[in-house]
């Protein structure tokens, strides 16, 4: 039940979330704005003292008889010092002089005087304006007068142009209130009708959100959490690698999930959602007797895995000492040191960095794996970001700030760009420089890439890993690699791994780049294609094209679709390996889904973002 409610909660949240923010914001502002100020009470004159009705006034019967329409009510009243009769019928209202029966026309001067009589502030009236209608007096039908006063509140007095009656005092507090009122009731045109279908729909969505939210609140709180962590009892959490090596033992406070207990020690299990039973990445295996799986475990893990004792760490609350196994667990603890051996600016904004580790890398450094580079705190000058002379123009166009700083150590993930055995046990990383200039807005340059671009041979680098489940699948099925930008890295490592071990299956590599200048390893790919008959490589350029190498122009997934996938006789026999920027990845995955390619046939790497 809970995973379902969680799903409903987040999808409804996606739809109503912004309106909820507007409801709470507008609610807050309206509660802050003083009601009397909104009503303009401070500058309202008190009602004039009642005075005796003149006995010599015209007989009302005479006035009613003289009226052109059927009068429904007649009321005595005063316009300043003049006794009047207000007459109303089903359509309209009007005012006549009570002494002589003459119809009174409310002109600009009279309107201004009447407005001034109802007003007690320091302002002076401006010239009256006649209006047919206004949103500021939305409940009044019929013509009206607007009289603005020159006070700090921008007071405006509205009067009926038929009867001279003062309708409203408006001011800037009211106007501000009114905007928030509009946002609150979601009637953007009339600002009046809170029974409109839009607000009803949103409110029903909000109610769903609240109901599921209350459930989730109860489900996600563990009563221990109300006790500060340091007063809670400790349990021992022993962490093992899958091969049985004991990696570490940590103290876990009762009530903390395994995910939280590990995170408190700086050990971040893979997770996108931050421990919300939402992404299913933080799986661990419980050694010994595992607690019964929860609904969230069942939603994310297969039956076979559940039987083996796999559980989501974010949903696993050890109440006694516990032993768990973490895949790639070793990687979380390791802190490898390596020396930069070589730096090669393969394109203006793609840099190959060769690292030599102190010890030879093990088999876990396989193609598709990635490492987390520990980026330290730094304060660099613009000149510390290195680039060769022939890329000068490209870099000049970036307009980087003079100082580039990182105030907190961070970790950044980079895929291996070559099988380690091919390069004498070195790690090859391919780092793209992210100037982070999106939509014409200048954002700080990427913290990781800035630092990596300042590295020179001989510099020291620390990293953790390797990690990741992006890997070549066994079995010689036809392979289609689709990549773009820095997505070259893991695909290149995989390609080399296949071809070097004498793969016989058909292998396609489709790579998208902005321009030829931005494409790395052109010669290398050409050479591979020339020596391996089963391998073909296709460059798709989205910007200017220089037909010499590029196979086609356009977006890589569109070109692949047109030139390969739509013509392929049997896509079900292929494995797909994708890596590239999020937009390209999403589009390509959607495309493959449309073509009926099963999820198991598609492996992808999402740059760990």
């Amino acid at each position, binding site marked *: 039940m809970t995973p379902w409610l969680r799903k409903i909660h987040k999808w409804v949240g996606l739809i109503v979330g912004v309106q909820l923010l507007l409801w709470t914001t507008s609610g807050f502002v309206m509660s*802050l704005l003083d009601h009397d100020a909104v009503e303009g009470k401070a500058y309202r004159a008190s009602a004039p003292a009642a005075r005796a009705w003149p*006995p010599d006034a015209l007989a009302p019967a005479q006035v009613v008889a003289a009226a052109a329409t059927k009068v429904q009510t007649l009321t005595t009243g005063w316009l300043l010092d003049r006794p009047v009769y207000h007459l109303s019928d*089903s359509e309209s209202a009007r005012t006549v002089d009570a002494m002589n029966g003459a119809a009174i026309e409310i002109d600009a001067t009279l309107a201004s005087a009447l407005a001034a009589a109802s007003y007690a502030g320091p302002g002076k009236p401006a010239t009256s304006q006649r209006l047919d209608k206004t949103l500021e007096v939305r409940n009044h039908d019929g013509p009206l007068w607007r009289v603005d006063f020159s006070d700090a509140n921008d007071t405006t007095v509205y009067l009926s142009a038929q009867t001279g009656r003062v309708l409203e005092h408006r001011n800037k507090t009211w106007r501000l209130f009114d905007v928030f009122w509009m946002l609150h009731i979601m009637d953007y045109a009339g600002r009046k009708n*809170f029974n409109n279908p839009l607000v009803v729909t949103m409110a029903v969505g909000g109610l769903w959100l609240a109901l599921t939210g209350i459930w989730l609140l109860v489900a996600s709180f563990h009563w221990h959490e109300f006790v500060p962590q340091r007063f809670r009892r400790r349990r021992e959490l022993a962490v093992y690698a899958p091969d049985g090596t004991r990696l570490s033992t940590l103290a876990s406070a009762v009530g903390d999930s395994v995910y939280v207990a590990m995170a408190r020690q700086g050990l971040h299990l893979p*997770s996108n959602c931050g421990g919300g039973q939402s992404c299913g990445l933080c799986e661990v295996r419980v050694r010994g007797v595992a607690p019964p799986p929860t609904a969230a475990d069942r939603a994310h893990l297969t039956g076979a895995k559940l039987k083996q004792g796999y559980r989501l760490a974010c949903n696993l609350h050890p109440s006694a000492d516990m032993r768990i196994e973490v895949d790639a667990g070793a990687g979380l603890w390791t802190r490898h040191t390596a020396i930069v051996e070589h730096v090669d600016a393969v394109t203006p904004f793609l840099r190959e960095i060769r690292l030599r580790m102190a010890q030879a890398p093990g088999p876990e450094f396989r193609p598709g794996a990635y490492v987390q580079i520990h980026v330290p705190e730094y304060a660099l000058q613009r000149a510390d970001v290195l680039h060769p002379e022939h890329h000068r123009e490209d870099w000049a166009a970036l307009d980087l700030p003079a100082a580039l700083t990182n105030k907190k150590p961070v970790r950044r993930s980079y895929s291996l760009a070559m099988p380690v055995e091919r390069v004498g046990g070195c790690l090859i990383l391919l780092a793209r420089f992210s100037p982070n200039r999106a939509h014409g807005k200048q954002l700080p340059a990427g913290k990781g890439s800035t630092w990596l671009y300042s590295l020179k041979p001989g510099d020291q680098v620390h990293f953790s890993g390797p990690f990741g489940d992006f890997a070549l699948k066994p079995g010689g099925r036809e392979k289609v690699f689709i990549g773009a930008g820095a997505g070259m890295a893991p695909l290149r490592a995989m390609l080399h791994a296949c071809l070097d071990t004498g793969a016989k299956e058909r292998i396609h590599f489709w790579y998208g780049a902005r321009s030829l200048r931005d494409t790395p390893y052109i010669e290398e790919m050409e050479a591979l294609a020339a020596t391996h008959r089963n391998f073909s490589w296709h460059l798709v350029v989205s910007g200017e094209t220089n037909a010499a190498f590029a196979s086609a122009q356009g977006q890589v997934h569109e070109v692949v679709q047109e030139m390969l996938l739509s013509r392929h006789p049997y896509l079900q026999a292929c494995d797909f390996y994708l890596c590239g920027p999020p937009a390209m990845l999403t589009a390509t995955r959607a495309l493959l889904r449309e073509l009926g390619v099963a999820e198991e046939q598609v492996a992808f790497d999402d740059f760990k973002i």
Partner: protein
Amino acid sequence: MKPAFWARRAHKWIGLIIGVQALLWMVSGVYMTSVSLDVIHGDHLADIDVEPLQSPSRWLDSAALAARYPDLMAYKIKQFMGKDAFEIHHGGKVLLIDAVSGAQITPLDESRVRALAASMYQGDAAVRAVEWITQAPSEVATRPVPMWAVSFADRGDTTLYFSPDTGELLARRHDLWRWFDFLWMFHIMDYESRTDVNNNLLRTAAASGFAFAASGLWLLFYSFRRRAAA
């Protein structure tokens, strides 16, 4: 720790503080938006169609009026139960007289109010009770007392309130209105007068609600990525 973790933690703990109020806001919001305001106002319960004045020629003349009420301040001529009537304001008092005969109509007695209520009421139910009210119940707290309360034996427990001095229909109350008012109390968190929208409790709660919604939106960024297949 990761931002996703903090977002989740923030949302959860703020939710603990403001969650129940958020539910109350939503429940009351759904009710107030989905029941038409005209229904809440009870427009369908009582008809106050105004007929034109009938017999100006036979009205008491101004001199007679002035003689009877030397301290006359203001008056209004309107229809009351099918006849023209003068609503006289004199010497701080208000009363209704027949416009032709000058006979005093108000203060209304119980049978008169019963007849008046029956003539306005649009439902089929019978009058259940007619009460003389000297202390206004909270549902008509803003109206002047004394007044007549006429209750009908219908499903909505309709009550019509009348002024004994002018015969005016002061308020229409029924269960949908009473629910609206009750939920409005929760919506603005003024549990005493149900009218103060500037109370500090509401202000604090609304600010927390804002933080709650913002943390929820923040969390949405992390909630849609699933496990990568590989």
